[in-house]
């Protein structure tokens, strides 16, 4: 599916085991507020995978994404996109990814097609390529009828769809999405998940942020959990489940009791007989990790 969109020369770029996005020891403190938004964060995001970046509101997800896309500068650390240093070769590095920003209401006075054209011009996309991508994705997201509309007249969901199309217009190898599911209708959310899978299947990298464990659990191959600017978990779902098991054993409780906090219990995410225990306990574990802000043992935090 979607072959034209994902013909991003993945084979040429892909080398066995090569890390397509690499963040090393990134820290960022906002000058105005003095808030340390990201603290010594190191992430290695491999190609051919869907990587979920989880955390509650204000955890540092958007700041991390802004740093890895060159929108803001980190105080320390480095970002490599396809092995290219973002600080040293920003133009080249930025051509390697497509970004779906967290605020879809950019450029509200432009018409949808004008916005897509602007992005396509910036990436130097040929007329035939941009038409192909726009036609296919606009049809998939049911936006074909709205391309002449001012962005300001569109709903939040429609604007998000427009940003999704814009982010893929140059067929990037790395696809970075900041809270992409928010505001999407179920049909569009499904289409997006399919696209993400197709992108990863074709060798590309998908990095997306969310604050909902369930979303990550259904889509991700790998995930990282961030809280208060620090990573509290990196690994795959299996690693997260192992962590849940080990926590259960350590506390002498059954695995379900992974959430020691009141809010998780009150939210009905644990100890509900007959419910989907796997999902509930991971959500609870997510909440527990976030609330404890604990560091995960070295052996668990691996890719």
């Amino acid at each position, binding site marked *: 599916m979607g072959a034209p969109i994902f013909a991003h020369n993945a084979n040429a770029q892909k080398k066995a085991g090569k890390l397509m996005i690499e963040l090393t020891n990134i820290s960022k403190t906002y000058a105005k507020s003095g808030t340390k938004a990201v603290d010594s964060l190191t992430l290695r995001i491999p190609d051919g995978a869907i990587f979920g970046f989880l955390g509650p509101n204000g955890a540092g997800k958007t700041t991390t994404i802004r740093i890895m896309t060159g*929108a803001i500068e980190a105080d320390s650390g480095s970002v490599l996109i396809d092995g290219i240093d973002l600080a040293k070769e920003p*133009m080249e590095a930025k*051509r390697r990814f497509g970004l779906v*920003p967290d605020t879809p209401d950019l450029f509200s006075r432009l018409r949808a097609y004008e916005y897509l054209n602007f992005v396509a*011009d910036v990436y130097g996309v040929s007329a035939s390529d941009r038409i192909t991508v726009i036609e296919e994705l606009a049809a998939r997201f049911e936006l074909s009828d*709205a391309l002449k509309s001012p962005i300001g007249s569109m709903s939040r969901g429609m604007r998000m769809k427009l940003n999704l199309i814009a982010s893929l217009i140059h067929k990037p190898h790395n696809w970075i999405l900041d809270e992409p599911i928010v505001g999407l209708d179920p049909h569009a959310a499904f289409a997006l998940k399919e696209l993400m899978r197709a992108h990863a299947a074709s060798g590309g990298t998908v990095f997306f942020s969310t604050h909902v464990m369930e979303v990550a659990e259904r889509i991700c191959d790998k995930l990282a959990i961030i809280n208060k600017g620090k990573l509290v978990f990196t690994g795959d779902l299996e690693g997260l489940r192992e962590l849940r098991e080990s926590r259960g054993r350590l506390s002498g409780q059954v695995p379900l009791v992974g959430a020691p906090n009141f809010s998780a219990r009150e939210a009905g995410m644990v100890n509900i007989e007959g419910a989907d225990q796997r999902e509930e306990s991971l959500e609870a574990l997510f909440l527990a990790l976030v609330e404890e802000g604990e560091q995960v043992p070295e052996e668990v935090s691996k890719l």
Partner: protein
Amino acid sequence: MRSPFISLLSLSLKSVFAIHLPTQKELASPKVLLKTFGWIVLAVVLLADFGFMFAMMDIGMHDALAPFGMQSLMLIYATVTASVLVFLFAFITSLSFFSSAPNEALFLTMPFKPSELLAARMATVYAIEAPIAFLVMSIAAGVYGIKNSPPFDFYVWMLLNALALPLVPLAVSYAVLMPLVSASRWLRRKNTILYVGGFIGLALALGFNWYLQTMMARIEDPVLLRKLLIDNELNFADIANWWPPAWLTMTAIGNSSMPAAFAATLANLALGTALAAAAATIFGRSYTKILANFGELAAVKGKIGRSQAQAVFAPRPVFISLVQRELHLMNREPMYFLNGPFVIVLLPVILAISLIAQGQQIQQALQQLRPLLDGQAGYLIPAGIGVFLASSTSIACTAFSRDAKAIYFLKSLPLEPRDIIAAKLVHALLFAALGIVFGVVGVGLLLGIRLVDIAVALVLAVLGAVTLNICGLVIDTFWPRLSWENPMSALKRNPNTIIVILGTMGLVAGLGALSASLPFQKYSFALLYGTVFLAAGIGFGVLLFRKGSAFLRQMEP
């Protein structure tokens, strides 16, 4: 606990006036202190400017009428002026406030009565009108008081009636607007409201300017003033008799009996309050329907067909695309367009009105100026006007402020910072070119300047305009205002705009004064100012492109 209505009213006032008084701790910062001082100076200057204008008119009128023992006509004039002014402001402000309906619609989900929602809005309009009436009436009271020593209660009736004058216009404005906005889908759009309100506001401002210029011209000529007031050419007395709030005001201040004056004042306040309350009650329900059905922009349906797509999606050079983005985002936002590029058209219109309204006096003044225009003033005046017009669009000095949160996205694109900055500069210079043409060529031809002087003025204006626009862009690149919710904050309420406009005014005026005092040859000034502008332009340009990229990289909304 405050009543919900008082809370709503307080929120409405705070959101409109948006005045943040710095705390003592904040004032410890030199930046905050300087900013606060700047705002105070600006407020005092504005108040003094309008106050001076009205005071001069009142004094002129009083002194011209006093020999005939008819100086109290000045009070009729002040009452009528205040009544007309508050009417204009009430209408424009009420109309403009409909543009915030999408935000206000949130209140529909809260337990407010429809009449409370409208009453809070009307009270906010009143808070804008009342100081205007108060200013006009208190200045008139002051002038009349100093020259005639009336009893103390005269001041009390003047000021109390000043507070009553805006109430009836407020009620009438909503009585006119509510059916209009309810019936017209077209008027229930933010863009339409902003454009219609903006253009009506400008028309009324121009009308008021015409009126002031006419009055000023007549005050200077006792024969014309007598014709105007005593022969009732503008029907001041008729307006005062016909308009109940004005009539009640005149009855209150013209009556020597205190109970009668008190009764008239009370009647004025009661009439206004009753009508405003009636409007809020009658139109409350319609108001909530407007809030619920307010549309922002119309979606356009229709696919882009294959045949169209080739043309629509034709690639352009990145720089052209960047400039086009700037043009679209600025000129499609009414708030930006009306207060930015449109100024290039507006200021010459105001100038033309002054010339026409003061007709004979201006002709005489031009005759007297003729010898001066044959000297350096012949090219310096059009150049000065051209430079001012070219720099008054606020395009350059708000270039990054207007982008605000979009800055993050722009920076994530593979765009060289210098290209983003250059596109913003080109956008500003495109409109600067228009300003130069209107200012230099238009004024040059109007004043009958020689072609050689127009050519010199053009060169000087281009150098000055380019330099000042680069300077404006430097200011907004280094100190952008990126945190805002209302576009007005990025342009009208942006300190960078005020700094650049006032700075340009000061520069042009300063150079004018310098030119009048230095004993140079005619074209030596062109050489001097041209060289200074060129050097400053190169300096600011180097600063912008050397340091601007670093500032852009560090910009964080």
